[in-house]
């Protein structure tokens, strides 16, 4: 195999790891979302509560997924890591949803 071919393979490998510019873009988006979240604090008297809860929850989830997918490389790594992490997450959500139901935190009676 020629050196050119090896270089091409190395370049192909680099595709698995985004460039620094890409990480900067992700960080900028995260900062923008965070700024929007913080902004809700200053306008919460003039915005319906349901809208605040909804928008904050959606932004929180998007930020969580973006950090996990791009900064933690879950998007690029073997799916087994994804299964482990999401498995723990789903287990936690399941267990504590039951916990909330047991303590009637949702006010269902």
């Amino acid at each position: 195999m020629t050196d050119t071919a090896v270089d091409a393979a190395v370049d192909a490998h680099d595709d698995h790891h985004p460039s620094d510019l890409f990480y900067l873009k992700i960080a900028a988006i995260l900062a923008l979302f965070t700024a929007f979240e913080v902004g809700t604090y200053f306008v919460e008297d003039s915005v319906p509560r349901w809208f605040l809860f909804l928008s904050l929850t959606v932004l929180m989830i998007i930020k969580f997924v973006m950090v996990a997918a791009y900064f933690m490389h879950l998007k690029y790594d073997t799916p087994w890591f994804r299964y482990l992490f999401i498995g723990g997450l789903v287990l936690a959500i399941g267990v504590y949803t039951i916990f909330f139901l047991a303590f009637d935190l949702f006010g269902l009676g």
Partner: protein
Amino acid sequence: MQTLRLMLLTKEPPLADSKLSEATPAEATETVTEHTVEHGTTTGISNNKLLMWAFLGSECLLFGALISTYLLYKERFNDFAANLAPFEQDGRNIGPRFGGEDGEGVFDIPFTSISSFILLGSSLTMVLALSAIRRSEYRSFRIWTLTTAALGSVFIAGQIYEFTEFVEKGLGYSTNIFGSAFFTLTGFHGVHVSIGIVMLLATYIMHKQGRLNSDKAETVEIVGLYWHFVDVVWILIFTIVYLFPQ
């Protein structure tokens, strides 16, 4: 031999099961052998990374428990606020962000927001440190690693200041059940950040001693995974504890 050289150079991720099933037995054996050489494991997956991900999965349960406990007891803030300043403003319930002597509760959202931006920024510097060591750009790696540790330290300093302010306003760990839940949750997170700082400094020292270079970039990646996890947990805490309206 050339194939092996290429594999070591590219560090190609393990083939998916579907790809393995499509391969002939000879190709599959060759692939498994190559990845075994790469990571020294029969699965082709790094045991260290696998262990870190399993640990992070279990951490989801730990922080899930702490956040759930906080949500369960957050309404018990009223006991504290009633002692401090027994009034309601505009018919709103008194909470961490309303009531108290100045009517603004104990939380200082603008201050905590700056801390959040700092921690978020540290995730960027962490990933840049990993990127740098993979490219063998060691000076950049050292700068980004130390920057990440410094940003984490600023976050911790901010948290200590915040806790001191809360105690001065009358909310301590044992003031009421809200205080216990709040300090346990944010305190545990702070301890995780502190451990992350120690890990970053250890990484830096190992590199200075010549024991960490681009061949062992996975060590930095594992430290980075922990650091980013601490960041995603803060994303949840910041929204649920500080930003959700009372």
